[in-house]
């Protein structure tokens, strides 16, 4: 009797479990609706990638599409959450294999970009640090005039002492820093994600992702790499400290973490957001700590951040930086996060792809990115909610010090140096997504590997416009120096007007600051060069402007009137600089 009662109770329990599961499990309609919504949103993004310029007036609509993607992916995840399976340990490659692989992935795609020479601000910074006779002088010179970045100035100064004006050394430093950062992404990922396979994928994705072309190849972006290295090292030391058993070792590791954070702050102010990330990590991360410890730790980081701000105020006199008016849309939320997602999932240099292979190549790239995005959203169901909130929170918080990010980052991948530190979390997210795909080797292998390969190839391709841009910079500087050299000796104060030179050729800023410095370097004499940079339009840079290098001696004023869509080349002033007459 008792047995039959117990059996009935078990039966009732089983029935109620089944009912509860049935209630929690999504119906076929819900699943279809969720899948269809994600596919449609991704199709809309793919379609817009063909024509909507993320830098142009449709920036808001492109970003809003990624908001729609976030909403659809989040709703799908919530709807299908009942079907999530526990993550398997899955693929766990040996560190002895992963570390060299990540290092190679971070270095090899950029090897043929090492010879691109200097660009834009590089000339200015180099000119400034070469005036310094000692390390203290270098600190006082502040080569990044609007900012307080003494560590970066010091590294530049050391570079100038070590390899002078040879650009190779500066590029090597950047590539090595990038490799170190990719390894740090792997090391922290191993502790945060709980899966070595996922961490390895995150490290590889960070190493070869095209969004990192600018910070790695442009020597002036060294502060971003240094600040990222300091911030990630600080996080890693904190992670090790949290899992350490010995109190003395823990104290030492926390102190080292503070030191790494201080160095990151002295490299670039974008590291200022790290205390927020630490707070987030302590609240949501795997190893929990007591409230008091958490407050002490975050307080320590905040004190250091406040110290840097005070020091900066004392040295510069103002807070410095670019004065960008804040509006709802260009603040950290939602625009910066959405832009990060956009450039991470769709790093398409449309102009360049169109020039290289036309619409079919662009279509292939869009299809590959759409497939990668679809696969990522599909697997999102298996990623624990806490970690998702951590990734999103990290991306948002790390975007806070770079308010201009949302408006600056473009589809041509210019200004993506600002995304270098914030997109670390996206690399972890997609590594996690890969692991959540089931954890079985067969499911983990193909798709992310293909996506990584595609990203790597794109990285290599993206190097080419930068080489072209650097070549153009060199041509213009050489040509200008040549025609300026026709002036009689002792004549100074000649103002060279070169109006509307291109500032951006396929993502590479060429002329902004430093043109005068580059000329002076070449001429070994002061030359004042004025120019007005032009925006690159749909019809491209006129050949007349590009042909500046072929100007005859004596032609010193070139004007390109882009605004009226007509090209007009003014060549006034031949008599003034012709070698026969000279300047009386």
């Amino acid at each position, binding site marked *: 009797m008792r047995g039959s009662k117990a059996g009935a109770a078990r039966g009732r329990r089983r029935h109620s479990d089944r009912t509860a599961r049935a209630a929690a499990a999504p119906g076929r309609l819900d699943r279809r609706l969720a899948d269809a*919504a994600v596919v449609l949103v991704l199709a809309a993004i793919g379609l817009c990638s063909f024509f909507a310029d993320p830098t142009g007036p449709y920036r808001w609509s492109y970003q809003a599409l990624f908001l729609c993607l976030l909403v659809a992916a989040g709703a799908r995840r919530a709807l299908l959450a009942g079907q999530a399976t526990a993550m398997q340990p899955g693929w766990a490659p040996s560190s002895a294999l992963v570390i060299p692989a990540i290092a190679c992935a971070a270095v090899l795609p950029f090897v043929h970009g090492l010879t691109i020479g200097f660009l834009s601000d590089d000339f200015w910074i180099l000119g400034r640090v070469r005036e310094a006779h000692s390390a203290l002088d270098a600190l006082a010179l502040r080569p990044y005039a609007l900012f307080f970045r003494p560590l970066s100035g010091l590294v530049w100064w050391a570079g100038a002492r070590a390899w002078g004006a040879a650009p190779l050394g500066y590029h090597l430093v950047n590539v090595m820093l990038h490799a170190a950062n990719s390894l740090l992404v792997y090391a922290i990922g191993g502790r945060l994600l709980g899966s070595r396979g996922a961490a390895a994928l995150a490290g590889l994705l960070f190493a070869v992702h095209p969004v990192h072309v600018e910070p790695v190849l442009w020597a002036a972006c060294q502060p971003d790499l240094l600040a990222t290295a300091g911030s990630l090292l600080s996080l890693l030391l904190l992670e090790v400290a949290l899992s350490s058993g010995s109190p003395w070792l823990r104290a030492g590791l926390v102190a080292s973490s503070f030191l790494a954070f201080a160095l990151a702050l002295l490299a670039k102010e974008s590291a200022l957001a790290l205390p927020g990330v630490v707070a987030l990590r302590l609240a949501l991360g795997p190893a929990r700590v007591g409230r008091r410890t958490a407050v002490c730790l975050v307080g320590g980081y905040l004190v250091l951040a406040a110290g840097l701000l005070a020091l900066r105020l004392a040295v510069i006199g103002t807070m410095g930086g670019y004065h960008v008016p804040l509006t709802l849309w260009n603040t950290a939320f939602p625009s910066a996060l959405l832009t990060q997602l956009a450039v991470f999932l769709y790093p398409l240099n449309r102009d360049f792809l169109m020039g290289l292979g036309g619409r079919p190549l662009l279509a292939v790239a869009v299809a590959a990115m759409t497939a990668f995005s679809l696969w990522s959203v599909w697997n999102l169901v298996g990623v624990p909610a806490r970690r998702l909130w951590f990734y999103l929170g990290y991306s948002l918080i790390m975007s806070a010090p770079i308010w201009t990010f949302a408006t600056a980052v473009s589809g041509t991948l210019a200004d993506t140096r600002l995304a270098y530190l914030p997109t670390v979390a996206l690399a972890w997210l997609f590594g996690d997504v890969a692991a959540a795909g089931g954890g079985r080797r067969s499911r983990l292998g193909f798709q992310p590997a293909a996506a990584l390969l595609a990203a790597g190839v794109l990285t290599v391709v993206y190097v080419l416009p930068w080489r072209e841009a650097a070549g153009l910079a060199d041509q213009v500087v050489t040509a200008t120096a040549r025609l300026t050299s026709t002036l009689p000796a002792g004549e100074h104060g000649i103002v060279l007007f070169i109006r509307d030179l291109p500032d951006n050729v396929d993502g590479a800023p060429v002329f902004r600051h430093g043109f005068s410095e580059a000329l002076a370097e070449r001429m070994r004499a002061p030359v004042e060069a004025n120019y007005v940079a032009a925006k690159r339009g749909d019809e491209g840079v006129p050949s007349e402007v590009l042909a500046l290098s072929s100007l005859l001696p004596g032609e010193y004023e070139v004007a390109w009137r882009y605004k009226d869509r007509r090209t007009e080349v003014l060549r*006034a002033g031949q008599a003034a600089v012709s070698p026969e007459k000279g300047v009386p």
Partner: protein
Amino acid sequence: MRRFVLRVLLVGAVLGAAACCAAPLPDLQREREMARSDQQVAQAQHLANSGQATKAFDIAKAAVATAPRNPYAHRELAMHFIARNDIEEAIGELRYAHQLAPDDTTLAIELSQALDTKGLAEEASRVIREAAEASPSNGLALTALVAREIRAGRYEQALEPARRAAKLAPRLQAAQANLGLACLRCGKAGEALEAFRLAVRLGAPDAVMLVCAAAAAGRLGEREESVRYAEQAVQIAPEDAEAWATLSAALNAAGDPAGAQRAFARAAALHPAAASMSQRAEGPPP
């Protein structure tokens, strides 16, 4: 309830994506029309340069029809009307182009020139003054304004803008020449001569500029320089009586009465009233 909210979010995301996708379409269509119109403008310019004026005119009209809000299509059509001596139509097109692109100084200058040709001097002045005020750092607009003031004989008013134009566009020959002329007429021969010297160096000078430079140099007692400029003027414009008269005065001042006499005779042969011409550059406004 939770499921209902999630379903609404999914449908909302799809609808939002569709709206975001469709939002830029009208602008993109307009852009495409503008690009097509620009191509037609370029084609019209090419045809006009190769002497096929009628065909170029038709294509310019087609460019306007393709993108009625393309200011440079209207400008191109206006140029064709000017070539056909239909100034009124040209002014209409230029007015509309200027309205569409009010920041474009070149369009303002061209409209002002067309208005001037039609005798609408007041409106021409207003257009160019507005352009110069709208872009105070644009040397080209300021130079055009100065040219208008000089043409209207308002040398005192022209002097300050001329100085600013010459500073903003130090390598623009017209800016320096205008400054020289304004200074000369305001009795500032030293400043005028400096400006003329620079203007002459900046490019191939015309006879009027050289005559004025010679006058300024003569007034300052720079006799050799005055003779040199006047000789260059008669070389460039051998049929210009005023240039010969200026050379005559310069040679006379330099102590070459025989040469002065020969130059005067040439001037008198070219124009009976040559005797007073050498004074014109320094005299009251024409």
